[in-house]
């Protein structure tokens, strides 16, 4: 099994997100691994552990700090790491999908994993676009993957708690919502060991993509309302809550 995981390095939203011009002020934010990609890496490693093979993690180096993320992926069980030297923190999901697809083309992948979405674009398009570029089938919203005899059985989550089970002939692209187990913790001792010995393959970005989104304006949301804190004894508070619910026609 040749498994490839396409990851995204995105601005952290744990801190304030400063805006500069029509985009995020990329110089003032930390970049982190997309949360769904953590799930995606875990699912890929679980499949490898079940059926054997290799896991290659590939991502676009947006700000020259992707190595740390790739070392973490290697410490968690990935075998190879590749970075596409994009060096453009503003590259959107369309552009990244094209670069990633071009890099993955030569890897003869049986399965490509991608996080189902990321908190920057929120368009959930990386996976489907890579699939389109590579001419592979795509299933997103996946919460577990099993592989046997070159066929993958995946569970896809739908709204309302409904799940669907699909059998897919490989190769395919999977958009991971959640791995079948919580992502493992990679001890920093191990990550640091890996960082000293691992080699990361560098690939130049290739291929252009028309941008899916054109930014007209970006600004922090304007605060229009606020929460009302009800003071007083628990009886008074309960009374006021009942009045409020009645006044809004909810009770």
């Amino acid at each position, binding site marked *: 099994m040749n498994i490839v995981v396409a990851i995204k390095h995105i601005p952290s939203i744990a*801190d*304030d997100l400063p805006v500069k011009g029509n985009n995020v002020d990329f110089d003032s934010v930390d970049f982190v691994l997309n949360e769904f990609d953590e799930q995606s890496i875990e699912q890929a490693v679980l499949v490898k552990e079940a059926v054997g093979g290799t896991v290659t993690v590939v991502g676009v180096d947006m700000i020259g700090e992707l190595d740390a993320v790739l070392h973490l992926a290697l410490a968690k069980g990935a075998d190879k790491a590749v970075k596409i030297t994009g060096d453009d923190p503003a590259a959107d999901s369309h552009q990244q999908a094209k670069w990633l697809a071009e890099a993955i083309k030569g890897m003869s992948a049986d399965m490509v994993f991608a996080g189902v979405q990321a908190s920057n674009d929120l368009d959930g398009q990386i996976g489907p676009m890579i699939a389109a570029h590579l001419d592979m089938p795509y299933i997103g919203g996946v919460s577990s993957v099993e592989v046997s005899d070159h066929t993958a059985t995946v569970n896809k989550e739908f709204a309302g708690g409904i799940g669907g089970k699909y059998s897919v002939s490989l190769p395919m692209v999977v958009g991971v919502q959640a791995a079948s187990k919580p992502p493992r913790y990679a001890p*920093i001792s191990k*990550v640091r060991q890996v960082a000293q010995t691992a080699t990361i393959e560098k690939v130049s970005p290739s291929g252009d993509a028309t941008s899916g989104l054109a930014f007209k304006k970006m600004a922090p949301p304007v605060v229009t309302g606020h929460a009302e804190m009800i003071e007083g004894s628990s009886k008074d508070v309960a009374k006021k809550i009942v009045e409020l619910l009645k006044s809004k026609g909810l009770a």
Partner: protein
Amino acid sequence: MAPKFEKVKVVEKEHAVVDGVDISGHWNRMFEQRVITEYTPELIEKVADIPGGESFANCYQCAKCIAVCPVDIVGNYGPRKLYRYAQTGMDLTEAPELWLCTTCKNCLRVCPKEVDMIQIMPAVREQAILAGKFVPAELQQAFENTAKSGNPLGQPQRKRDAWIKDAGVEVPIIKDLARPVDVLWYVGSYPSYHPRGIDAASAAARIFSALGIDFAILGKEEKDDADSQRLAGEKGLFEMMTEYNIETFNKYEWKELMVTGPHELNAFKNVYPKYGFERPVVHYTTFLARYLDQLKPLLKHRVEKKITYHDPCYLGRHNGEYEAPRKLLEAIPGVELVEMQRNRENGYCCGGGGGGMWMDSFTAKHTTMRLSEKRAMEAASTGADVLAVACPFEVSRFADAVKSTGNEHVDVLDILELLDKSIRGEQ
């Protein structure tokens, strides 16, 4: 020439002379070597072969440690027992016992063979973690939080200094101050984020301000010391944080580094020198004890309380400070200081050290009660109204423990909060 005896034969004679020595009447004496061939040394060697684990093999089963081990007092544990378990088949790298030690150091204090659990436990834990063996999930979460957010609570870095706006006094950030200060105050993660920790941090700020101390904090640049994570086996995480912290400390000019927490004291004073950082580090109790003459006139309001003080393991046994906290408490007018049975060098551990802070649920499964509960009961038995502490791990631990043991009448307060009460009066 040594006497020879036949194997597997107990010699008990009415009248016996061996090498000219009359040993008649010693009916219980056995002249044969104790058969210990059913015990294998492999699992002891497995621990002793790990760098740092060597002294495990020193144990000669005297059991002095068992009398003082805080975990044995609420369970069935202790260095001697671990050695015995290893002899009879327990692989410490895979056993739950690996995660129960709080590195409180009371065993090492009494051990005639210097079996050093403070070295052994982190070393064996690191091997277990690296080999992907069992690690309590709640501990992994604390590791992950520290690696990702810079603190074990998983709180955002940008909120690290959010507490200062409600402190009631100005708390300068060294970056904004842009000048050298006398004291760089390392606040710590729990005083920065935990609601009860913030109470202590705010009290500290008001005390320093009242004393006119020239201090500043690192604000959003401050990150966890990760010493307890190191003792819990994540040395790599500790080193990552250490590199960051040393670089940050060295960015600014200051004369002394003051810490709110004993674990930070241990890290910066005893471990950081190995990483090239050798600067004066002081715990707030030691620091404030120097200012007793200036502090006493400020302590205007009487605090009519019977107070017992809990010695933090990492302030007392690990760093030898027993008197400064007591001097500060005794300086407060109205305070009657009473001692718990286990105090100073023999102080009982709260269970928070060595990563125990993040393994409460796990530890609870292997003990009859939490260590903090045992200690809260001991505090209550003195008749004290207040359990005074000097470690940011302890306020939340003991506040829970007094409740769960039915001792709500005992207030758990940091010494900083008590001093602040005396300066400002009940608020």
